[in-house]
């Protein structure tokens, strides 16, 4: 029996393991190796082994450290707001019957548009001189606002566009979680005289915790990697007001052609994401236990 089990393990697990190693481990290991060399895209080969020099220089690079701070601000801001608004919309949609499908279809439209198209469309709408947003605001006496040109507004504006596009994702996942919740606990709570707010905090939130963990984890990872929206809307400007870590990595790889530096910065990005993933997975498992 043991031998059969081993055979089954090899038969069923080995293909998956090989795919996982090829898709995940090999690129990651390659990136790690490259990060210890002064590799340039201009020349074939790895270049010279320089140990941790890339990592040390990354931390001395103002653009990189600044972009880490901006990435955190961006991620925390968009994930929190998307979660709050997404949950409100999901709860509202879950409680209505008439027109639910129509509302749901309308809400998920932004998610179906590519970030580049979203960025370009919003860039035109937010144009300080020719955009419709400032035009409409002028009717209530608000003068032209430089949504993407003023360092005070630029990051907030890009975050708003990201939130607009990704709330549907939150709604989609949270709705999927809400419809699977059992009805009996709610009926029992209602008989016991619990209010809707009490039911929400005592029943919905605990039962939805695994879904919350997954959706927060996935959106956090996606937000950490945000690149296309920044590239299309601001290219990290004005100054470095909207420069996120993915854009800095892109610049190092394709503008400066410093593949080694870009690789070490990517490792820093992975190191930022891994603890978050562990935290959410731990939270989810802890709750289930």
């Amino acid at each position, binding site marked *: 029996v043991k031998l059969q089990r081993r055979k089954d393990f090899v038969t069923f697990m080995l293909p998956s393991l090989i795919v996982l190693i090829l898709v995940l481990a090999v690129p990651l290991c390659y990136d790690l190796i490259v990060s210890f060399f002064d590799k340039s*895209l*201009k*020349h*074939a080969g790895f270049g010279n082994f320089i140990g941790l020099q890339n990592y040390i220089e990354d931390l001395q690079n103002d*653009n990189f450290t600044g972009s880490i701070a901006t990435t955190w601000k961006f991620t925390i801001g968009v994930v929190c707001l998307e979660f709050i608004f997404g949950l409100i919309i999901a709860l509202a949609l879950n409680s209505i019957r008439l027109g639910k499908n129509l509302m749901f279809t309308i809400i998920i439209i932004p998610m179906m548009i590519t970030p580049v198209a979203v960025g370009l469309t919003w860039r035109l709408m937010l*144009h*300080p*001189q*020719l955009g419709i947003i400032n035009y409409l605001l002028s009717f209530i006496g608000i*003068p*032209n*606002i*430089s*949504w*993407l*040109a*003023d*360092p005070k507004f*630029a990051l907030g504006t890009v975050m708003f566009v990201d939130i607009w596009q990704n709330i549907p994702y939150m709604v989609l996942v949270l709705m999927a979680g809400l419809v699977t919740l059992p009805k009996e606990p709610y009926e029992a709570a209602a008989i016991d005289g619990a209010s809707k707010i009490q039911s929400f905090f005592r029943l919905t939130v605990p039962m939805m915790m695994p879904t919350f963990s997954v959706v927060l984890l996935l959106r956090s990872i996606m937000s950490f990697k945000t690149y296309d929206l920044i*590239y299309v809307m*601001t*290219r*990290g*400007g*004005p*100054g*470095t*007001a909207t420069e996120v870590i993915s854009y800095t990595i*892109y*610049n190092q790889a*394709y*503008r*400066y*052609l*410093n593949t080694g530096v870009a690789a070490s910065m990517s490792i820093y990005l992975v190191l930022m994401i891994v603890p978050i993933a562990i935290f959410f997975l731990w939270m989810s498992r802890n709750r289930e236990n």
Partner: protein
Amino acid sequence: MKKIKRTLALVLALTFVVSALVGCGGGNNAGSNGGSGDGGSDSYEGKTINVLLEDVSDCTYILELLPQFEEATGIDVNVEAISYSTMHEKVAAQMVSSTNSYDVIIVDYYWTGEFADAGWMYPLDEFIAADGVDTSVYLEPIMAQNGVTDGVTYQLPYYNYAMCMLYNTEIWADPDLNAAYEAKYGKKLSVHDITVAEYVQECEFISNYYGKDTLAGLVQQGGRGDPIVMEWLNWFFGNGGDWYDANGKSALNSKAAVDAITLYKYALENASPTGAISFNLDDAQMMMVDGKAASMINYNWQLATLNNMENSATAGKFALAAAPGGSANVGSWGWAIPHNAKDPELAWQFIKWVESFEIAKERALKGGAPTRTDVFTDEEVLEKYPYYADVVDILNSGIGMPQFKDSNGMIEKLTTALSEIAAGEKDAQAALDEVAAFMDNM
């Protein structure tokens, strides 16, 4: 039976060898025809090349003329026209693979040093010599940055983008505006022979006169990336600056540079429309077409675009003058064959055709920006575009890009610094000191 088998095998082997030899002969024949420049359509019939171009007006003119090439040579040409912002990464990614998707690429003037250092361009000297192509017809400053590098011809110039002042003649000639300006400064508005500071003063006056969000004196393209650098270089050169000082050190942190960015920032805040710090080429063009800006420092080929814009109330009202300070940023593009191109011979046929006098002239007549002196001085071209005479002066008096190996990285460093200064994030001198140190370290 054995004998029959042996004979059959011998016949088959002979047939194979003969057919292979015939095949080789055919290939060589096609190559030699192409090389000598008289390749008939038969030699290239059915072959295809991929050409990467920037999606600008010069690209449109080539697309219009392309059927001539395809008909003459039988070569099908796939043109991929993309926006500037994605070009460098696209080209760089192709260069490191074993074969290139593109047979012909175009190279911006500040990529030349980097591409040559990386060995990404195929030498053209043999093709040039075999076909007797005369490269002396190209304007010298352009050939120096998009032609010969370290004694090897890697490119033939494609189009120039010498920068200049483009202005709305109706606004600058407005009698009421001029009277008001004269009352304040004792002279009329002028676009000729003015310093950078005088230009800013005039533009600020126009912006205050009309309201800068109604009609601004100038529209800058201060967006991070290529736009702010290309534009600021005119302010820097116009202020007497240059890339290097007398000791061969970077002069990007000189007084002329600091003064230039200080004036540039002042103009962004006081003379340009709100939000110009995020504008790119398209934004600036739209503001001019919409009649919301009186002038801009931009590429000379924009004049034809602005004046020929369909359904525009401002079409035909624009003229060109030398950039303030008299020394402009002289940019250009060149044609090149990637080092890993599948068939350089075929690619050369296209470059040879597109840069022939006849096609270069046709492109110029459509509004293209020439690089050949014989096109610039052609009577028919000058009759249609008299300002080309001024463009030649701008090209000869302007400053191009010295070729250094990490030029693209240096421009990226400069654009970040300029954007940080313009956004008020960094002190001008400190930020430019960093750029100069970076340039000196290369």
